[in-house]
């Protein structure tokens, strides 16, 4: 019941937020929040650290961008195809990556994502370094024009809520419980008769699909799909967002994404812009050394101790 109240409060906040803040900024936060939640499904609930999630974000972005520029598809269809493309890539990468564990898993995903990066760098349809520019937002269902930023924001909010709900359902489903069991003790899960790799693989596919959904949406918001989204820096950023917000908490990645995106926006405008990677690295180090449970984790600890 308490959770319900908090969710309603947050929803109300999200609905009135554009009156105070710039809608494109808010839409950006929501895209990255969905990306981080998707990533966290894997790290926080299955214990798998993917260092290659940028591949899915970028794939969603490029596919949706390409379709919007070159085909007459409406935005919702282009997003669906982008998401499916991410899921398909996730299905292939997942099959390969779940063969290895722990640190190897991180290295395999990073290497596979680099393969994808080179593909988009060399493929003719991505315009290489320039990226796909001037992607039209189109009209939702052919009816609602998305070129207005406020309309776009509410569309992104709808997508975010759907994705967030899906992750929430996944985590609390029997499937999610098995994932947690695998994270805590893989051998025991195996001995109980669960096909561990199959569960990990499915989690990987869901996570990849949602990351691609975030990328597809992001391309529409910024009218741009570029190599930044598939670069390994992006895979690092999503880890940082999740870490700052709280690994393994449902809402943590949302806060973490808000924190990092706000920080980047603030820094890139000011004279500290040149220091952005140094500051990100420093946040990484500080989080790992002394803030491992993240913002939400700390809040929950505080609540447990004091109430």
């Amino acid at each position: 019941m308490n959770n319900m109240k908090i969710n309603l409060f947050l929803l109300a906040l999200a609905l009135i937020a554009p009156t105070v803040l710039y809608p494109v900024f808010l839409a950006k936060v929501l895209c990255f929040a969905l990306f981080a939640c998707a990533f966290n499904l894997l790290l926080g609930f299955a214990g798998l650290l993917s260092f290659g999630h940028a591949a899915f974000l970028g794939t969603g972005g490029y596919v949706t961008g390409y379709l919007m520029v070159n085909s007459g598809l409406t935005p919702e269809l282009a997003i669906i195809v982008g998401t499916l493309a991410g899921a398909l890539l996730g299905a292939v990468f997942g099959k390969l990556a779940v063969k290895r564990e722990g640190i190897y898993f991180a290295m395999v995903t990073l290497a596979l994502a680099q393969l994808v990066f080179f593909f988009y760098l060399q493929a003719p349809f991505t315009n290489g370094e320039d990226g796909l520019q001037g992607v039209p937002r189109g009209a939702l269902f052919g009816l609602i024009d998305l070129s207005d930023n406020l309309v776009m924001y509410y569309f992104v909010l709808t997508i975010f809520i759907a994705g967030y709900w899906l992750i929430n359902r996944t985590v609390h489903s029997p499937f999610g419980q098995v994932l947690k069991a695998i994270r805590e003790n893989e051998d025991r899960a195996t001995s109980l008769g669960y096909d561990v790799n199959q569960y990990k693989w499915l989690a990987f596919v869901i996570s990849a699909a949602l990351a691609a959904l975030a990328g597809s949406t992001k391309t529409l918001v910024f009218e741009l799909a570029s190599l930044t989204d598939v670069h390994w820096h992006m895979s690092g950023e999503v880890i940082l967002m999740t870490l700052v917000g709280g690994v393994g908490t449902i809402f943590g990645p949302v806060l973490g994404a808000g924190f990092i995106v706000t920080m980047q926006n603030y820094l890139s405008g000011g004279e500290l812009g040149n220091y952005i990677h140094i500051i990100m690295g420093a946040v990484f180090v500080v989080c790992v050394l002394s803030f491992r449970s993240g913002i939400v984790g700390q809040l929950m600890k505080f609540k447990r101790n004091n109430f």
Partner: protein
Amino acid sequence: MASLFDINLFALFGQLLVGLINGSFYALLSLGLAIIFGLLKIINFAQGAMYMLGAFVALLALKFMGVNYWFALILVPLTVGLVGVLMERFLIRPIANEDHLYSLLLTFGLALIIQGSFTHMFGSSGLSYAVPEALKGGTKLPFMYLPNYRAWIIIVSVIVCAGTWWMIEKTNLGAYLRAGTENPQLMQAFGINVPLIVTLTFGFGVALAGFAGVMAAPVYSVSPDMGSNILIVVFAIVVIGGMGSIGGAIITGLGMGVVEGLTKYFYPEASNTVIFLVMVIVLLLKPAGLFGKEA
């Protein structure tokens, strides 16, 4: 027709040489990773940054203190190794008992800081470091022209790799190291200072990257992102070879360099990606890696 054949052979040997040189660096870097992994069970994401640091320290030492290449070959690994020792002692050790993924993320953060600082100070365009006087020039071989410095890289890298292998597999120090990998508690009970060995091992693994950096300075352009680009390739190589054996890391590193060189000759479009594709094939056929021991 015959001359066309000659030119092709020239190009082929040229790419093979480039492949062997890249392979030498892959071998040095993956060897360092494997040594650190053996004892600490972590992957040092800052290994690429340390390689870059090595090249920059050599460059700056030459510019500001007149330290020549030969002296840099000794000074730089010591400096970079010291950075590694401090890193292990004050940053990694405090979280040694947490999940290993955290130490991996810590080294990733450090890599961002180091690379970001150098980009800020020197920009992202490359700087050049002159080939030392004694190694200038080259030798004309039947099918190719072999620059002396390139031959030097291959020979020295192989000697350093073989020396490291010998030290770990055949000496007392290496025996401590292997025993520490096997059972650190028991080692400690025998009165051996395990934390010290861990710190020194980390320093040594990182120093190898610094050494590779000095070696690379005269052939590649010295730039802040030289480390991150090569590191991802080295990760793929580590997955291909598996980190179970020191010898495996060396052989896979050199071998993949050659594979990359041959690809540049036969199908240049795939030369960036061929190592990742080999990784995919190895994962399908032999998931534990070519020299991997784990189940």
